[in-house]
């Protein structure tokens, strides 16, 4: 299934070009502008039909904002969102409606994202009401079918969210997202709040649904192992920008960005032999997206940074076919394993 990079003739389901989302920081009674959060600062990618693009990064890197802006739950500051060739960036809410049906979201917290006053069946059926997609009888049948599809007994339709466990609630959230037969589902950390044994069940369910319904996923998460498992391609974000984007195997075997290298080496591996592996431990914290460092955003923590990195931001470009990275290290040709240039 990793053939997505090779076949260029397929029209992407969705494409994002130079997407930016900046949040003004307002202060005082007159809401004067006191700065800007550069949450998403020029991000481009595409997702093919039936493909999962994983989006990883640490807190505050902008990965959730990308997911929300993509669905236009947040208005983009600039850039383009193109669905099957149609630019939907500036569509008004009414003309967005048909696109909304095709793009749904699964949220992280199965406790906070379900309305406690609605029964599970009403929650799953609500999108059909909003989009007038089915009458009451059809709706009940379809909700029952959705319940079965996500592994819940249809008898539970009349129960309320508090009567379900965390894993079951996440299944309700998934059933709701599937109610209008979308083509794209954005999952924002959909398994991070779950216990590991339940997490595996939900990951398997998401993969089964994708194969069966030919869904495309944008899978946003901080857990690299989970993202690797579910995705076909993976994009790594740092402070509002994509620093590396590649087929997941390439990304894992040949990380070309120093941040990806550090991220991969920081993930603890559940194996006895993992103790003795060589590890890159980054110093310091992620800088604030309000005042990101000049040049390459990562240079303050980078092992290989040179004077050029502090002054000039590297562009995300194809270093080897299908493998993009934003790093000056590779300007004279691919450098792997990564090493600091001899003359700085």
């Amino acid at each position, binding site marked *: *299934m*990793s053939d997505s990079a090779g076949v260029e003739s397929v029209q992407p389901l969705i494409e994002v070009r130079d997407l930016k989302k900046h949040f003004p920081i307002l202060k005082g009674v007159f809401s004067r502008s006191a700065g800007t959060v550069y949450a998403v600062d020029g991000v481009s990618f595409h997702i093919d039909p039936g493909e999962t693009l994983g989006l990883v990064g*640490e*807190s505050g890197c902008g990965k959730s904002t990308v997911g929300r802006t993509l669905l236009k739950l947040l208005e983009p500051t600039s850039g383009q969102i193109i669905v099957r060739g149609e630019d939907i960036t500036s569509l008004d809410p009414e003309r967005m409606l048909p696109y909304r049906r095709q793009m749904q979201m699964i949220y992280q917290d199965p406790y906070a994202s379900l309305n406690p006053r609605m029964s599970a069946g009403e929650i799953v059926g609500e999108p059909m009401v909003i989009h007038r997609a089915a009458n009451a009888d059809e709706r009940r049948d379809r909700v029952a079918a959705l319940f079965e599809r996500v592994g819940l007994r249809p008898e539970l339709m009349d129960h309320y969210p508090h009567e379900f*466990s965390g*894993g079951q609630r996440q299944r309700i959230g998934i059933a709701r997202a599937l109610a209008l037969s979308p083509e794209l589902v954005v999952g924002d950390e959909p398994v991070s709040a779950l*216990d*590991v*044994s*339940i*997490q*595996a*069940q939900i*990951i*398997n369910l998401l*993969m*089964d649904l994708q194969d069966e319904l030919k869904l495309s996923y944008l899978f946003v998460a*901080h857990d*690299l*192992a*989970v993202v*690797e*498992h*579910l995705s*076909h391609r993976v994009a790594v974000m740092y402070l509002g920008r994509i620093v590396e984007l590649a*087929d*997941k*195997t390439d990304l*894992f*075997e040949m990380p070309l960005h120093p941040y990806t290298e*550090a*991220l*991969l*080496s*920081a*993930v*603890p*591996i*559940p*194996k*006895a032999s*993992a*103790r*003795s*592996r*060589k*590890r*890159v*431990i*980054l*110093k*310091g*914290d*992620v800088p604030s997206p309000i005042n990101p460092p000049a040049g390459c955003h990562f240079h303050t*923590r980078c*092992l290989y940074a040179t004077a050029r990195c502090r002054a000039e931001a590297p562009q995300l470009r194809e270093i080897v076919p299908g493998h993009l990275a934003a790093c000056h290290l590779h300007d004279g040709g691919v450098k792997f394993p990564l090493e600091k240039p001899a003359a700085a």
Partner: protein
Amino acid sequence: MNQGVSQGTTAADAVTASGPAVLEVDDLRTHFFTQAGVIRAVDGVSYAVRAGETLGVVGESGCGKSVTALSVLGLVPAPPGRIVGGAIRFDGTNLLDLSEAEMEDIRGNEISMIFQEPMTSLNPLMTVGRQISEAIALHQGLSPRTATEKAIEMLRRVSIPEPERRVHAYPHQLSGGMRQRVMIAMALSCNPKVLIADEPTTALDVTIQAQILELMRELQDRFGTAIVLITHDMGVVAENADRVVVMYAGRKVEEASAKILFDRPGHPYTTGLLGSIPKLDVAAQRGGRRSRLDEIKGMVPSLHRLPQGCTFAPRCALATDQCRAEYPPLIEHRPGHAIACWRADTLLAGAA
């Protein structure tokens, strides 16, 4: 702030866990008496940790791993909680026999704890310096000024940049990783013999998690602290613990050295847990093809209504009528490898 490539820990491997246990939990039973009935949150759990050793305690939510730790520190809310049986021995003394005043001398002094959420466990109205020095002043009777100096020293020890300035900072002015460092500084300020870390890095990003775990290892190497590392993350355990206790529904189901546990697990629950975690290296080996994870079917039973027999039997593929009838005893199948499972021999033979 020089950065470096560091070799994964080797010091912990060298610790062969000899010498007497500093902390020993013996057949501990902590129950909660609620209107809905008795919840056996901890039901006969035993473990021991020696100086310089890290004991990993793993399990999913509600398995009793945190309640065991709170019991050790005498912090179980009572009512509804009560320790109804067992002993907790620290340096030979049974902590359950001590008065609250005597416990106060031990808590935070001899045995310290780091909690998961640094933002809710630090006092937002006190500077971090005062919070650290409060413990030192209380337990070691230092003057305020020497206590502040000690606080600065502690902040330096946990690698907080500009400790002289940060000592006057409030928790909200620090990042998540720095707050967790402050928690560690507080916990270590009195040089405790035992450090209980309850999900110390769960709220942190992976690159920060790696920093904090490395810091804990360094401090352990220097001071010989015994660490009880409670976590749900099997990766964190594999890379940091010398021995591991696996808990399920209030009981210990398996105990082994980290090496044995990850190479040859003997309890179907442990096997299931390990199979259900996506693994980075495996994902790549499969050449990009995605595979299903081995899932453990069903969910953790409610502690209100535990099934008859082995509590894991309803989710276990190997379960027999005997498993559904009778809870299996914890048996040492190999030296240092204890398993509570009727089918352990089958499982171990299959793995061999």
